[in-house]
């Protein structure tokens, strides 16, 4: 049972004290869960003298450790109560034996005993289909487009999108989901009072106000530490039915997430990219290791979106340009295909397409007018995601 902090600060204080005390006594995650399961609420745990050695008990806790724990639990609780000014606002907590605790997390050995969350929409994590979308922190234009289209389709199909709230693909996944009216969940690697990256603070607010959720297993005041992020990644993997890596280069952190997902028996999907750019190397590696290749949101099988946007004929929303979804001429198709391999300058492209520069410039101007091509970093870049 989760209780809003404004109504009952006590629950939140107890939760924090519980985490502090069990950290101090080095109690394993499974024991923590067992303690909560037996006590059913945190206040019970505070009062209870010792664990009942019932038949169904799997607890391996020694009695002295438990007493130690209880002493520090009470101390921490007292201390927190006296410093009531540091209370976080709008934060809720859910215990692993609560009904609204994300049930998918219970599958895994390293399931956290409790989660802090901003917003009260815990039920979205128990909806019928949850997909994690992750990827590079410095995506290419291609990766951004892939993420945008995929997330838009997922939002249309009312699928909950989980991601890490970091810069790059994560931010895009959340942002486009919110923009399309979808529900999304950000799993942070820092405490909720110290959201990281700071630049996404307003995004997290938007997520909460649009029916989404921002969660963290860390105490609200935990700073963003390096070692917290792989731990966070396991939650992203475990919270969902399928993990999609939209774009990731060599040695990307998303490989860790994908490894967790595979361990937990989740479906792992990777979107391929150009073999020349090197920006999708991790995706290709995943595919080689047995991940499914994702070409469209259709490949996620369970989803039946009302209107598919991916793959689409143009990257444009709603046809701003004249004839944005018009038929392309043969030359235009050729140029677009060349550009989909990698962005290029005029001379390079002329060599690649074997078109004279004057002709090519005309084709490019038409494509630019209709929003198929744009110039980024000085190079002509396709805004069309797939063919």
């Amino acid at each position, binding site marked *: 049972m989760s209780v809003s902090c404004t109504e009952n600060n006590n629950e939140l204080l107890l939760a924090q004290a519980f985490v502090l005390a069990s950290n101090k006594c080095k109690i394993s995650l499974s024991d923590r869960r067992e303690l909560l399961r037996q006590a059913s609420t945190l206040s019970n745990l505070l009062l209870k003298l010792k664990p009942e050695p019932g038949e169904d008990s799997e607890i391996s806790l020694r009695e002295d450790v438990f007493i130690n724990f209880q002493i520090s639990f009470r101390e921490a609780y007292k201390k927190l109560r006296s410093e009531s000014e540091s209370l976080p606002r709008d934060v809720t907590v859910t215990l692993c034996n609560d009904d609204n605790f994300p049930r998918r997390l219970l599958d895994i050995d390293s399931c956290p005993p409790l989660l802090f969350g901003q917003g009260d929409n815990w039920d979205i994590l128990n909806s019928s289909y949850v997909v994690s979308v992750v990827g590079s922190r410095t995506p290419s234009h291609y990766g*951004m487009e892939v993420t945008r289209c995929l997330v838009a389709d997922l939002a249309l199909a009312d699928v909950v999108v989980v991601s890490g709230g970091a810069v790059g693909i994560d931010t895009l996944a959340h942002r486009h989901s919110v923009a399309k009216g979808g529900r999304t969940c950000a799993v942070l690697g820092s405490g909720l009072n110290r959201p990281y990256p700071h630049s996404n603070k307003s995004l997290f607010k938007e997520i909460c106000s649009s029916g989404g959720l921002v969660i963290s297993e860390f105490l609200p005041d935990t700073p963003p530490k390096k070692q917290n992020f792989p731990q966070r990644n396991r939650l992203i993997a475990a919270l969902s039915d399928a993990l999609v890596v939209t774009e990731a280069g060599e040695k990307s952190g998303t490989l860790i997430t994908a490894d967790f997902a595979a361990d937990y028996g989740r479906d792992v999907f990777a979107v391929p990219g150009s073999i020349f750019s090197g920006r999708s190397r991790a995706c290709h590696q995943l595919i080689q290791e047995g991940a499914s290749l994702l070409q469209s949101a259709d490949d996620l099988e369970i989803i039946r979106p009302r209107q598919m946007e991916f793959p689409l004929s143009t990257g444009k929303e709603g046809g701003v340009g004249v004839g944005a979804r018009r038929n392309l001429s043969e030359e235009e198709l050729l140029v677009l295909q060349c550009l989909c391999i990698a962005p290029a300058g005029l001379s390079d492209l002329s060599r690649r397409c074997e078109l004279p520069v004057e002709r090519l410039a005309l084709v490019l101007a038409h494509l630019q007018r209709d929003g198929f091509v744009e110039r980024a970093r000085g190079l002509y870049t396709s805004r069309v995601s797939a063919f």
Partner: protein
Amino acid sequence: MKKSQYSKTCTCALVGIDGFLIEIELCLLPGLPSFEVGGNCDRAVRESRDRVRAAINNSFYAFPKGRVLASYCPATFPKSGSAFDLPLALAVLEASGQICRPLGASPIASFGELSLDGRVHTVPGILNRLLALEKAGIKDVIGPPCELDFHKFLTSCRYHIVTSLSEAVEIYSGIVPSDDSIRNRQIEFSKNTEQESSDSSFSMLNRLTGQEAGIRAITIAAAGWHPLLLMGAPGCGKTSLASAVAEILPPLTEEEILEVLLIEQVSKITSKRRNLAERPFRRPHHSITASALLGGGVPPKLGECTLAHCGVLFLDELTEVRPQALDVLREPMELKRIHLARSSWRVSYPADFLLIAACNPCRCGERLEPDASCRCSEYSVERHLDRISGPLYDRFDLVAQLNRVKAPTLEASLDQSDDTRAVSIQTAIRFAWERQKKRCKDFGEKFFFNSLIPINQLMAFMQMNETCLKFISELAEEMRFSFRAFHSVLRVARTIADLRGAEAVAEEDLALALEYRLTLPSILSERNNTA
């Protein structure tokens, strides 16, 4: 009592690059020995008193005793420099009765600097002075030797070259040599500039094979006199391209030759041009100051803008040039002239140059390369390009993006060096110029290059059809052109059509012109429609 203690002689003063006739009156008065000059003279002119006294004595004449008073008129012109030594000395000698002009002889002018031993040294702006004197109706001029063979610019005026005060006295007193010997003397002192033919020309363009994008950009810039900014990674050939512009530009016309010569004569710089018709190419270092670029000082000296008149002003490493210096360029780019006012001086210098600039797109320089190896943050790229102010960046009609030429293309280029290439480009440019001239004449306009078409005339000059017009306005809307950007695309398209030899601007001309609108966001952007 002596007969005449008064004399009058002519000389020429320079204000800017223009010469003005000056009369020097000199009078010997009784009194304590002294030598005074008056009439808005600066320090250098007043210093000439001692040189004149020494030169007269050392040429075995006698400097008059008593009070010597000289006056330069009109006194309204500021006078500067050492060119008045020779006329002053001649005036002293005549007033003291040591020499005299023959009766009925036409007025004679002179200028030149005297050394203490009586030799005559050269002064800046000989040609400028001669033309001014000729215009004032002077038939004979005495002056120092000049490296330039300028007889074809003179019609009625005879220029007597002298190397010493004694020679000047001879000519002044009427011992005039024959026309042939005057001419021979001119030839004797002139360096034979015409003889050095253009053997080594068109060398730069050969080194640029493979850099087709750049060659296209400089061709368009030269054909329409459009300011060009070359942007690309280090070593992609920006500097070579800029040097190649001087080679593909058609030679100077007769009128322009004179304009350029007048500037060169005053500037005291030795010309590196191979012949008179070659266009100037100025390449100041990027540490240049605003006044060195524009001109300045008292009296106002010529700046690089003026030295590049009718030719190319190449600013390498544009982002390293101090912003204050860069922004002074805006005015001459529009007006094609520079007006300077410094204390009593008011001068106006011509400055119709073709501005070519080059810079790296970011600090590491790799921003625009396709391999995406640039790791500069957007902030640092922005700061790097911020050195070029928005209004100046806007004035570049062409911003050409250059990419490195890949090694295989380079190798291929080494085999086939093509001398006819530059000639054919030059011919194309010349034809494009002819077309522009003719069109401007038809419209009754004085300007001639496409880069100068005023906004109200622009559409008439374009002669576009309906579909073309629709195409460009749709493009402008999609790509969010500014007002100025839209017009410069049109002007560039006009030039491309002229190079093609077409009277009406077509869609493909506009499309190619679009390639040269490399906007700041499109250099930066890696993220776009995230919102």
